[in-house]
């Protein structure tokens, strides 16, 4: 068991924190569920943790926009903690709604809390969809994807708002595409249903320039246990634990 503790940061409406904890535990990592409210009240503080994950769900009911209220709280009330956490070079992962939070907060792709580098819009179908997808790991300079470059990982994707829109200013800010949806032939695709959101270029996951901050729409924690149809997502959690053990 790794000494380092990962914060699973959740809010009312988050609904993937328990399975994320289970996946991390299987990978030999330790985690703690941390309510956003506990950071606000001072009952907990981000600096206690060596890594953080914002799991999926519908935080604050996705009112006003998926991830918007969570992001607003992060940026407006926890900016100092967040900046300190990022500056310390600690890994941060947002899955699904967590990715939406990181985008809305400006943390992805440019590590600029309060900025607007990218957004995740309604799927082209305007529907939530759950389907198994195949993801090509297109960048392994992230600790989360070390050793996985060129691999195709299979895991469930389940969201209604996963179509990335990258702002004009964003390309210069160093963000990188880490995962792309691929079709049966293994090539990146914008075609439905291999790409359920209609994401241009098949973009399913994006990291900042350091690779420490990663957001992805599909759910690695749902492809991590021995009972799951695919265990490809487990690699991402194992990578985190390895990185923490060597950091």
């Amino acid at each position, binding site marked *: 068991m790794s000494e380092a503790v990962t914060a699973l940061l959740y809010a009312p409406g988050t*609904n993937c924190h328990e399975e994320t904890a289970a996946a991390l535990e299987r990978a030999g990592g330790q985690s703690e569920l941390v309510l956003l409210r506990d950071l606000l009240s001072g009952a907990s503080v981000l600096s206690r943790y060596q890594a953080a994950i914002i799991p999926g769900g519908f935080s604050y009911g996705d009112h006003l926009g998926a991830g918007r209220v969570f992001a607003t709280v992060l940026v407006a009330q926890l900016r100092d903690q967040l900046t300190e956490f990022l500056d310390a070079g600690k890994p941060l992962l947002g899955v699904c709604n967590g990715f939406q939070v990181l985008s809305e907060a400006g943390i992805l792709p440019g590590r600029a809390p309060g900025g607007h580098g990218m957004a995740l819009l309604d799927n082209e179908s305007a*529907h939530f969809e759950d389907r198994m997808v195949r993801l090509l790991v297109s960048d392994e300079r992230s600790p989360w994807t070390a050793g996985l470059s060129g691999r195709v990982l299979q895991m469930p994707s389940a969201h209604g708002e996963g179509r990335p829109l990258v702002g004009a200013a964003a390309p210069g800010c160093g963000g990188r595409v880490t995962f792309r949806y691929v079709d049966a032939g293994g090539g990146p695709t914008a075609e439905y249903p291999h790409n359920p959101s209609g994401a241009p270029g098949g973009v399913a996951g994006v990291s900042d320039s350091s690779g420490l901050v990663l957001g992805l729409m599909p759910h690695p924690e749902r492809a991590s*246990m021995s009972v799951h149809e695919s265990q490809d997502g487990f690699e991402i959690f194992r990578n985190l634990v390895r990185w923490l053990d060597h950091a």
Partner: protein
Amino acid sequence: MPIHGIYTVSRDDAEARNWLGFLRRHGYPALTDLAIERVFWLEGDLDVRALLPLLANPLYQTAAERSMLDPARGPIVEIAYRPAVTDPETPSILTGARALGQSALEFARLSRRYRFDGLTESQANEAAARFLYNPVVQRIREPSEAWSTLRPSGQPDPVRSVTLAGLDDQALSALSRERSWYAPLAQMKVIQAHEATRGRSHTDAEIEILVQSWSDHCYHTTWKSLGLLKQLSQATAAIHHPLVVSAFKDNAGGMEFYDGWVVTIKGETHNFPTAIAPFGGISTKHGGVIRDTLGFGKGAHPIGGTTIMGTQDPRLADEAVPAGALHPRLIVSESIRGTAYYVNPMGIPMLHPVYRIHPGYAKCLALGHSIGLIPREYALKETSQPADFALLIGGETGRDGIHGATASSASMSGETLAKESAAVQIGHPITERKFATAIPVLRDAGLIRSITDLGAGGISSAAGEMGAETGVELDLDTIPLKDHSLTAWEIMLSESQERMLLAIAPENLSKAEAVLDRFEVAHTVIGRFSDRKRFEARWHGQTVTDLEMDFLWGACPIEPTDVAKPARRLEPLNLPPLETSEDWSRAIHGVLGHYHCCDQSPAGVRFDSTVQGRTVIGPYGGRNHRMPTNIAVSAPLRGKPYGVVTTVAFNPFYGDIDPAAMARLMVIEAITKAVVAGVDYREMVLCDNFYTPRLRPDVAWDLKAMVTAIAELSVQIGVPFISGKDSSSGTFESAGRRIDVPPTLAVAVMGRVPDVKRVVTKEFKRAGNRLVIIGRSEGDALGGSVYADLHGQRGDCLFDGVDASAARELWDALLACHRAGHYVSGSAIAEGGVLLRLFEACVGSGLGARVDISVLGKAQESTADSCDGAELLFGEFIGSATVEIESGCVLDDLAVSYREIGEVVAQPEIEVKVGAKEIFREPVTNLESSWTNTFREVVG
């Protein structure tokens, strides 16, 4: 305080594009474009620009202080919540504003403006009213209207007394109807007599409480009158099943799982609200049945669910839809939207999405199950004790859903559609999600004495039932309202969603409140349990109710029900012979494209089936995840191989022919589906959901016959029912015509397996393997079949292949084969016959099948040019299964009949032969187009 308006639009609005397509398909082809603008109304002395980061993302949204919709392009309709109602988004806006330091924001509202290019103003208003808002809680805001305040406001009526003294039968019935009590005359007379005995008239609230508590929906008067409730629970008691933890006494039934855990099941219909307002009706259906799980024992956690719909054919011509009913296409597509809207944010995997049709479902069937998980030690409730606090948690109480219990017990007509629309509401899953997270924490800390959900009958029902043994005293002034114009009886009866009532011992109250605060769950002590055995409540200094519990729960008259054998006009099947290969092709494509067999994944993929990380087998599997699995397997205990397996059986066609036989077949079908997968029938329980027409002597006959059939069968096979629900209001009256639902029974199985890896799935595994039918595959099996329905026929008899002992022998044989590893894929035969099993196994594997139907039953003596071949391929031999065995496997010691019918082939095509003669051969991809098109056309 000043009120500011901030308007936002999205520059890339997939939702607007989607509504455009939807409205064009649903009656507004003239619509050329649709634009949506949101307006945030913000009250307070504040700098609105400081709120912009919350209200709009500049990357794709534009915000302004005036509308950006050009009224010259089309009529604009603004939809807002009613002044007396709190917006669901208000708390989130206030949370975000506080985060931005704008505490001066006192209140906020959100309205939505739609611009309908190409429609007239009246068309625009009509489209909005039909699809875009719920008039009970929302309204169209006139452009000229100015807000004076955003805060909910309104003036309630006082408590009034209502005397029944001196009213004759006719007057009593008229009053019952006029007040939407829908109480039978006998109940009205008991209430009238009670008034005379106690010497004072009842308050409006007291009568409302009585008729709600005695409604068929809540008190099951029909079932009690026929002795049916007792029949099923006695059958279960007689079985003495060692795994049954709780049956028919709590909000759900519970079965022993492994390692000290219990799994629970409950099925609930919400037919009436779904028929009149499908989006709201279906979302609150899910909300309600999920709360039944949360209210099991001391609070179970939901780990899975189903959505099962029965409607008229969505492809019906507009003019064929009964007057006053919604078009079934609309009911189906709106119900899909409603399920996604509610269940996805709840974070509960959808395991069985099932859509069926029958011309009798003018009042649709809307069924949902909820599966739960709870530690054994918390699976049984305690009784609330005098002095315990009655703690209401969750949402505020509003005007929504008033008279839901009584209205849903009535039959439906075009008139009720208009009159009782108040019985329908929109659910708010975030509120329920919050307490679903908090309840296990409260439970595990030992803070819950008892818990129940607020569903039909609201506080009246929950507090009345919880305090039945002791008494309860409520102070309605404490109850948080979202609608300040509610009077006392409306507060008591409101069916506002997302609320639960807890009994908390005095010493635990502050600890419970701290947990609830942490998870941002609103909570209010609304009273205490007493030792007076009375249902007491006060409001604004007035007595709302002071009823004896003994009267409330002991005085409901159960009238005898007349029973008479129905006269069914059944005709034997008269199906045209299949002579040419074109005939066969048409028949095969027809069966695969039939609504009951077709690919329904365009609905199913809109629901999250993998959340919680427990799903082993979800609704779709095999290669490309397109094959319907018809069996769901979840591994609820993380890191453990134990599985909970669920299946459902629901066939509305069979009920037309012989309801009792249908009921037996549903039990056998549901169990066989699970047994083929490798689940021991001795480790299973059942859940029943009945839906029958409004009670008449012939309906009562059928109902009795169905219940008797399954009660007896369950004892004979030793598989107990542990939960169930009935709705006896499946009648729609329209333009002098009565449309009855077919006698309907949906059976769900919940079983357990020690190792999910041992579950056998349906898709073929290897070319060269042999295909075998285990069980009977001869006899009349086309009655009520999909194939007969294609010809507009039902027939006069159902397949009667299996009695209880034959079923047990068959299951024992299948389980022995499973233990021996004899088969590598398999599925139980149901609608669509052997053909659908073969086809789905091909879809799931990319392989093909070659079968010779001359080795089956009658085909041995006949030729392919008779209809018998169709019987073999399309016959619904319920209780039998098709399995794939490895080429070298020997089945000689099998104790039941079986037949080898062919083999798995590498080429992805289906080939059907009669002896040496090929009668059909087509690539699976050809067949797939018929299979996929049906439902895709329905949902668009």
